[in-house]
């Protein structure tokens, strides 16, 4: 029976060795030349893979009719005019940027106020998610809770599945076009991601303190409170700051949905709807400045915390 199975497997293993190559069944060769001649023909597999990839690529391009942009010729003069307006950084530009332009809504319509609003929404949402995710992250750690961790892990994956933008569109029914909607949408999605990263961090720490507390009679809660949290807290703060980085990118989009009082996104939507490209340039500059500043600040703090 065993020999029969071996004989059945042999052609498949030979084909595998010929094309892919594998050293599990060790083969020895008399001299280097015959070993070189018996090398796996990996290029054939690569060719098949590449041909499949290109075939899929062409099929998909044909399905979505990607070449239809050629139907209408590109108007370079129009495009150039728009981009020139976009980069015209004159007095009006800076007046709108700092909120002195009454035509664009004054201080509350300016870029500076709106990027501060975006930062405020993101910060509050990340802070809420930072605290709510701690129990979920600990419950999702396989080294503490064993197979029970799957419950929390699957819950976190389900939370992550829903896009923030769709969640915000739904939450409008719950709390209207209000700042609270933006905060809940961002925080809800962040819990999933932060919880998963927490679980990864917990699985990497030293479990000596927790075992010591267990041997001296501490219950699970005491073990986690005194044996685990003090050593993972810097990592948790680092994860939260990293998430602030990512949330600030999503936070700029929330203004599109929540409209007024929800940050820079609403200005962007207004300006490309009405074709005010100079103001759109100011919005873009504001977004870039905000994200770069938060990036630098958070990477600096992360270095300080986890040094």
């Amino acid at each position, binding site marked *: 029976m065993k020999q029969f199975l071996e004989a059945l497997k042999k052609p498949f293993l030979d084909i595998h060795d010929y094309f892919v190559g594998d050293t599990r069944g060790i083969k020895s060769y008399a001299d280097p030349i015959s070993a070189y001649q018996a090398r796996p023909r990996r290029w054939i597999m690569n060719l098949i893979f590449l041909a499949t990839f290109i075939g899929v690529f062409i099929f998909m391009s044909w399905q979505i009719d990607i070449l239809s942009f050629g139907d209408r010729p590109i108007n370079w003069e129009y495009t150039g005019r*728009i*981009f020139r307006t976009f980069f015209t950084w004159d007095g009006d530009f800076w007046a709108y940027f700092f909120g002195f332009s009454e035509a664009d809504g004054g201080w509350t319509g300016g870029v500076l106020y709106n990027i501060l609003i975006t930062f405020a929404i993101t910060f509050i949402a990340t802070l809420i998610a930072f605290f709510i995710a701690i129990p979920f992250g600990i419950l999702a750690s396989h080294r503490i809770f064993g197979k029970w961790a799957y419950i929390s892990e699957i819950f976190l*994956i389900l939370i992550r599945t829903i896009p923030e933008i769709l969640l915000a569109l739904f939450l409008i*029914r719950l709390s*209207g076009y209000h700042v609270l909607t933006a905060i809940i949408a961002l925080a809800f999605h962040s819990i999933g991601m932060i919880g998963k990263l927490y679980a990864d961090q917990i699985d990497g720490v030293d479990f000596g303190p927790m075992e010591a507390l267990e041997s001296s009679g501490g219950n699970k809660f005491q073990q986690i409170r005194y044996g685990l949290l003090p050593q993972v807290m810097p990592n948790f703060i680092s994860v939260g700051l990293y998430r602030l980085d990512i949330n600030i990118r999503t936070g700029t989009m929330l203004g599109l949905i929540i409209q007024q009082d929800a940050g820079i996104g609403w200005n962007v939507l207004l300006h490309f709807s009405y074709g005010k490209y100079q103001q759109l340039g100011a919005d873009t500059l504001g977004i*870039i400045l905000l994200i*770069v500043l938060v990036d630098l600040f958070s990477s600096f703090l992360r270095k300080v915390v986890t040094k």
Partner: protein
Amino acid sequence: MNKAESSENKGFFYKWVHREVQVDLSDAQDGSDMRTITKKRPVLLISLGTLGIVVLIASIALLNWGARLNINFPAFGQAIANLFIPNPYRTGDIAGWWAYAWQQFSTSFLQLFYICFLGTAIGSVLSVPIYYLCARNTNRVKWLRTGVRVIFDIIRTLPIFLICFFFSQIFSIGNTINGVLTMAVFTISVKYLMMYQYVETIEMSPFEAIRAAGGRNGQCIMTAIHPYAKPMWISYFIYCLEINIRASVILSYVGFGGYIKILQNNIENNYYDYVGAMLLPLILFVMILQFVSNFLMRRGHK
């Protein structure tokens, strides 16, 4: 040593950073061997906490809490329930719900998926030279490395709807190539960073061996670095595909048609049975991709 003297010698902030604690070192714990020791306060934690509280208060003060708050739990619950309840005027019965789901999946959702896949594929292929130019161990020219990193750091800060807006000004609005190129740029900006950080952690001894045997730069990278980076490239490909499908929902606001525009219209018109039927493939795809990418990343890191 006199306590007062020591604290005066160490500057005015010594008392803020340190505190004095009375401890009993005797075995019987009866107070016979009391000592005074100085302990450091958790300065970093306290200062971070203070900073957080100050920023939180400033944020709460800045936001406009008064306007247009309309908390309505029944409406929200009804909206969620209506996702799965066929409406007699639209989907009719449960068979109609499934028929609409299949119709949207086979036409508009597949189109969105193709756009995301093409964008991810183009972006992933284009990001290969970029992350080898950005990594410290494969590119020794400092000015080139820094220059490429700064350019792509700036591109990374642009939100996806602005990238799509720029493309829609070049090619006219409504072309699928806007979406493909947007996804490609977005994928490059996500992927180059993760990949060059991974490439910098790769073991360099095979590279040096090939360098010592006389390999050129390209040969060293292709033989000694690329085989290690390839599995990570594939797992990040699936990760980026998942991110792209989730992020593409915003593109309906810049005149991008198809699935997401229909979805947005359905939500705004309260056609929640249509929305539920449309969301089913999206959620399923994202979930499957998430499980696959989690699995691959766990394997890749081991």
